[in-house]
Every structure is written in structure tokens, then in C-alpha cells.
């Protein structure tokens, strides 16, 4: 394989589409892992004092986990779109490949960052639960405010993949 062939291979549309699918689950997943991890530490701290609050803080811990799921959905839709599940992967141009990467970017970046920030809001929410367990709904709402942007990012990614890119 010559160097030119190697570069040409890297810019194959299918490779780029797979890179997009990989990054969506990978990066958003790392973000969620961080967010859920942050919240989990705080939750464990509270549960060590008051084990009966387990169910409440578990909900708060789970909230930053959705970004990873959104990343996964994006990956799935990319694979679905290029025909991985129908058994025949479509021929893609380099431009189409880059379009997949562009389409995945919202959920990659926003998913990653919003998961971490949502994790921090969840931590703060857990301290609400520590003092006022009856205010769970408010703690959840604060965390849900952050999630809005992950939802919008997912939406943008999904629309671009499903409608924006013509194969």
C-alpha cells in the first residue's frame, strides 16, 4: 500500500462514517460516565449517613446518564443509515463521510459537556435531598434544565443524519 493509498483509505466515506459513529458513543459516553460518577460519589456519601434516601438519590444519579444513551442512539442511526443492518454498506464519498462527522458533532461535544455539568447539578441536588428530602422534584428539575441542551443536540444530530444526508 502506498502512502497515497493509505491516505485515500482514511478518507473513504465509510471509514469517516464509522469514525462519526464511534465518537458519538465514545465521547458522550465518557461525559455520562463522569457525570454519573460525580453524582454517584455524592450519593454514596449521603447514603452512608441516611440509607433510606437511596431511591431518591439514585434517580438524581441516573439523570446525567442519558447523554451516553443519546450518543449511542446517534451511533446506531448512523450505522442504520449507511446500511450496516441491512447487510450492505453503501458506497460513500469523502464529502458524505465528513457530513456524518459534522452531523455527530453536536451530540459529541454537547453530550460530553452537558453530562458533566448535569452531574454537578445532580451533586448539588443531592445536597438538597440531604436537607429537604421532600424537594426531590425541584432537584430533578434543575438537572433536567441542563439536559435540554443534550436533547437539542441529539435532535440536531438525528435530523442531520436522517434527513440532511442523502445517500
Amino acid at each position, binding site marked *: 500500500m502506498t502512502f497515497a493509498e493509505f491516505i485515500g483509505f482514511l478518507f473513504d466515506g465509510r471509514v469517516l462514517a464509522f469514525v462519526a459513529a464511534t465518537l458519538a458513543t465514545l465521547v458522550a459516553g465518557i461525559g455520562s460516565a463522569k457525570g454519573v460518577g460525580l453524582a454517584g460519589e455524592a450519593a454514596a456519601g449521603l447514603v452512608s449517613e441516611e440509607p433510606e434516601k437511596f431511591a431518591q438519590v439514585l*434517580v438524581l444519579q*441516573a*439523570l446525567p*446518564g*442519558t447523554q451516553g*444513551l*443519546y450518543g*449511542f*442512539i446517534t451511533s*446506531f*442511526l448512523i450505522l442504520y443509515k449507511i446500511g450496516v*443492518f441491512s447487510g450492505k454498506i453503501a458506497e460513500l464519498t469523502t464529502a458524505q463521510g465528513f457530513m456524518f462527522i459534522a452531523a455527530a458533532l453536536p451530540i459529541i461535544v454537547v453530550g460530553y459537556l452537558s453530562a458533566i455539568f448535569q452531574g454537578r447539578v445532580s451533586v448539588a441536588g443531592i445536597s438538597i435531598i440531604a436537607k429537604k428530602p421532600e424537594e*426531590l*422534584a*425541584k432537584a*430533578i*428539575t434543575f*438537572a*433536567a*434544565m441542563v*439536559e*435540554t441542551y443534550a*436533547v*437539542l443536540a*441529539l*435532535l440536531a444530530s*438525528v*435530523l442531520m443524519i*436522517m*434527513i440532511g444526508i442523502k445517500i
Partner: protein
Amino acid sequence: MAIVEMRRLTLIGMNSDKDRILRDLMKFGVVDIIDLQQQDADETLSVLEKDGNQEEVAQLENELARIRGALDFLSPYRVKQKKSLFAPRRQVSVDEMAKTADRRQELMEAADRVYQYVDRLNRLKNEVTRLESDIASLGPWRDYPLPLEETRTKSTVIVTGTFPASVNEELLRLDLMENAAESSLYKIGQDKDYSYFYIIYHRSLEGVINEILKKYDFSRVIFRGMAGTVEENIARCRAGIEELNVERKLVESQIQEIAALADDLEVLYDYFSIETEKRKALFNIVRTSSTFILQGWLPADQSENVKAKLEKKWDCIVELREPRPDEDYPILLRNNAFVKPFEMITRFYNLPKPGTFDPSAVMAPFFCMFFGLMLGDAGYGIVLTIAGAIMLRKYKTEGIIRDIFGLMFYCGISTFFWGAMFGSWFGNFFDILFNKTPAIPPLWFIPLDDPMRMLMWSMIFGAVHVFTAMAAQIYMLVKRREYFAAIFDVGSWYLVLIGVVLFAVGGAVGPVGKYMALTGVLMLVLTQGRHKKGLFSKLFSGILSLYNITGYFGDVLSYSRLLALGLATGVVANVINIMGALPGRSVFGFIVLFIVFLVGQTFNLAINLLGSYVHASRLQYVEFFGRFYESGGKVFKPFKRITKYTNIKDEEDN
């Protein structure tokens, strides 16, 4: 309906009847007692003497804690009836409770005995642990033939101890033979860390031996306080444990005996907690030497009944009056069976302010619909509806748990409906099962195939929601007779928003929309600066108010989450099915499909249940309540019997 109307009750009664009147009020359970001892409660009353006895309450609370602790200890010893998580509580009549309360001396003693027994049990357990560790440490010495108390004879010394397992025994023996011939070394055993030895040597060799042993990292083992051979000692420990276990069984059987009283202790606990509540109520009451005054809020529809009952039975004066406009009465919500579970969503936000209205009824259909759109799977809907219905049948006690099942039931129906519309039955499970696409065609359309259409509908649903919020806003303003604000602050936005939409649609309605929007804009520019001074700043504020349009559009765009979360549920459900189908169409394949389906769909349902709840709530709290809802009410907390273990049955004695 909605917010229950309240009456303020003033009761003046004789101190001699106080206890029994309070008992009656507790039985009615509809009066929220006002704290008259507070400084700002009522000036005319604050001169009176304060009631209540702190010591009595502390004493009762102490007894509650004692019973509670005893019950916790007893719980593993109680005869277990098979009890489901949501089994109804035991019914206890007032008489039975009084009888149990008469036995309080005996029961409290029993409770205290539990503590003693548990203490003894712990000591016995510690003792057993000690003996067991003795046995464990003697284990390697099992083959040591000499009595343990013998550490020297007239001319020899006997030393027991260990070398590291890695010790070079040959070298050691050689060393001993060369430098201390009058000694002999015996090996007893070996495990993975140590070798066990004993050495007998002549007294004169003390120094030399010590030196050699040190060189080989010898550490002495001393059997303090033990006599006889190792075997004998181990046997003695075993016998000791045996004995302790017998005693432990004895103590446990004694605890078991008390455990038979646990049911009575529970009743006594509830009795004491009712008494405590009653004593605590006194802290809200003021008194003179022979009378007392109590005030409280109660629902208007029950007020006359309570007044009649009290006045008939006791020598007392009862007065009722409507709340004054500035008075913050406590908030109790009352709605029909469908809206009832959704009150919980309102309560989680905050209760409405007195004099406003309860948004639960307006909010409930939207919550239900949005939840269904986001979960959007007929299979999940069926699961939720059935689970909710079963639990509702089983769990009759009013309260938050029943509300949750109610939510499950209604939102399940909505989920089923939207799932059928979108053709999602556990994702594409049936497509895969029957190898046919689509096995069950959607009643409407499949969002994944046409996301733009779903996005548009999400926005339309959102717009309806926002318009409803604006209507509620107008309702609030009209109720307060602020007609001008109703027409110009909210009404003009109706014109602008509807106009813009019509204009965007175009065609015949296009020009109509244009003029509607312009009229609305004109109204806003002319009126929104009306609180400012000076013509210029009035106009400027008016123009600036047009910026609010971004708020409306932002809110409507926020409903795009209906599409996003709906897709999220559907896609993951499909992925699970596709994964399950990977092994192919064989018997083995179907078994795998079934297992993957069960585990995966349960997981997906759980995750998206949380997501749908969170986002359906958020849409209510931020986009809907944000426009009109005035919260900040106090919860209506009636003075009633709060019990932990039992439910009290009343005889109709009056």
C-alpha cells in the same frame, strides 16, 4: 373544586374537657390547628397563658424511642406471616388500643428486657469469637506433645515459636549442632507463612541459643494462661463454645417469648405517638384558669358538621368564619379521580397561593399526553397500565404511593395510544418475531421514517400547551379584575403569535395573519410601557417588549424534546430486538431473543420511564407553570392520628 375552601374555627372550651375534645378533633382529622402562642398570632390572645408541657412530651418521645428500638431488635425473631410489600395495615379498634395501653407497665418492661437480652447476646457472641480465635491460633500446635504450662525443667528450657516458612532448616540444625550441642529442635508443623518448632536446651545455653534463633527470625509463641496439652485446650475451648451456644439459645428463646408481644408493642407505639401528637397540639393553645382557646382551619364543607358535633357533645363555643382576603389559609387540593394523581406533580412544584387556582386539572391531560408521546410504545403502555391497575386494586390507602400508581395507569394508557399511533410495540419486536416489516402498521406514521413531520407536530402540541398557559394567565387576570392587562398583556400576544403562524402558512389566510400580527404588535408597543413615565420611555419599553417573542418561540422549540425522547425510546427498543435476533431463527435463537428481550426491554423501560417523567414534569414546570402559576401555599396539615403500624377503626359512638 380544586383548592378547597377553608373556614377559620375558634373553639372555646373547658379545660376539664380539653383532653377529650382534642381526642375528638383528632378523630375527625380535618382541623389544621393554628399556633396561637406565636407572637403575631392574635394580639388579643397573646396575653393569655400558654398551654403545653414540654417534659411530658419529652417523656413520651423517650418511650417511643425505646419501643421502636426494641421492635427493631425483635423483628428477626418474630413469627413471619407472608406479607406483601403493600399489604394493608392491621386494623385495631379504639377499645383494643385502650386495653393495650392499660398494659403499658408490662409492655414497657418487656421492651426494656429486650435491651438486656440483646446486651447479653452480644457478650455471648464476643466470648464465642474469642474462643474461636483461640482455637484457630492453637490449630498449628496440635501435635505439640508437652503440657503448655511446662516451659522449663530443673536444667532445661523449652521454647515454642515460629520461623518464617522460608527458613533453611538444614542450616539451622547445623548451626545449633555446632554452637549449642545440648539442644534439640523439633518441628511440629508448617503452613504457607510459618514453620512451627519447639526447642529444648540446657539452661546454660540461653545466650547462644537466643543469638542463633534471632539470626533465623525466630519469634516466640507464649501460651499464657493455658495448662495441659494443646489437644486438651482445644477441647476445652470447644466445650466452652458449646456451653455458650446453649446459653445463647436460651436467651434467644427468651427474646422469642417477648417477640410474641411485638404486635402489642406496635399498638402501644401507635398509642404513644397519638398521645404525643395530642400533647404537642397543646403548644398551639392558649388558656385561662378554667377555659382554653383553640383556632384552626378546616374545609368549609365539613365545618358545620364539626361545629354541630362538638357543640352537641361538649360544653363549648364554636365559631366559624370565612378567611379574610389577606389571610393565608392552608391549601388542600381536591380533584376528580382522573386529576387526583396529577396533584402530586403540582405539589412537587409547590402548592398554589391562597386565592389563586389549582392548575392540576388543566395540567393533567398535557402531562399525560406528553408522557405518552415521549415513552411512545404500545407494549410499554400495556405493561404500565396493567401494573398500575393491579396496584390500584391492591393498594387502597390514599397517599402518594397510590397517586404514583394512578399516574402509571393513566400515563400507561396514553403511552399505549401513542405507541399504537406510531406503530411501536416493544420497538420492532413483532417485525423481528414474524420476520415481516411492518408486522403491525402504525395508525398514524413512524416518527423515525419522517422525523420532520413529528418535529412539526411536537411544536404544534407545544403551541397548544403554551396557548393554554396564556389562557390561564387571562383567567387569573380577569379573576383579579385586571381586564386591561388581560387584553393587552396577553391578548395582544395571541394576535401576534397566531398572526405570525397564519402568515407563515400563507395562502388565503396569509394576509389575515399579517394584519392580526401587526395589530398585536401595535397594541404591545402602545401599552407595554404604560407604567413608565414620559412619552419616550413609554414608547421605548413598548418596543422593547416585542423582544419577548423570542421567549415564546424558545418555549415552543423546547417541545422538540417530544420527538427526541420518543426516538430515544424507540431506537433503543429496536436495538435490543436486533441484538436479540442475532443468533438467527432457531430454537436456541428464540430462547436468546426471549431473554435479551426481557432484560433489555425492562432496562429500556426503566430508563425512559424516568426520562419521560422528568421531561413531562419539566415542560409543565418551566413552559407551562412559568406563564401563569402563582405558588407559595402552605400545606394543609390536619390534626389527626398519625400511626406507624396500625389503622384505627372507629366505632360509631356518636
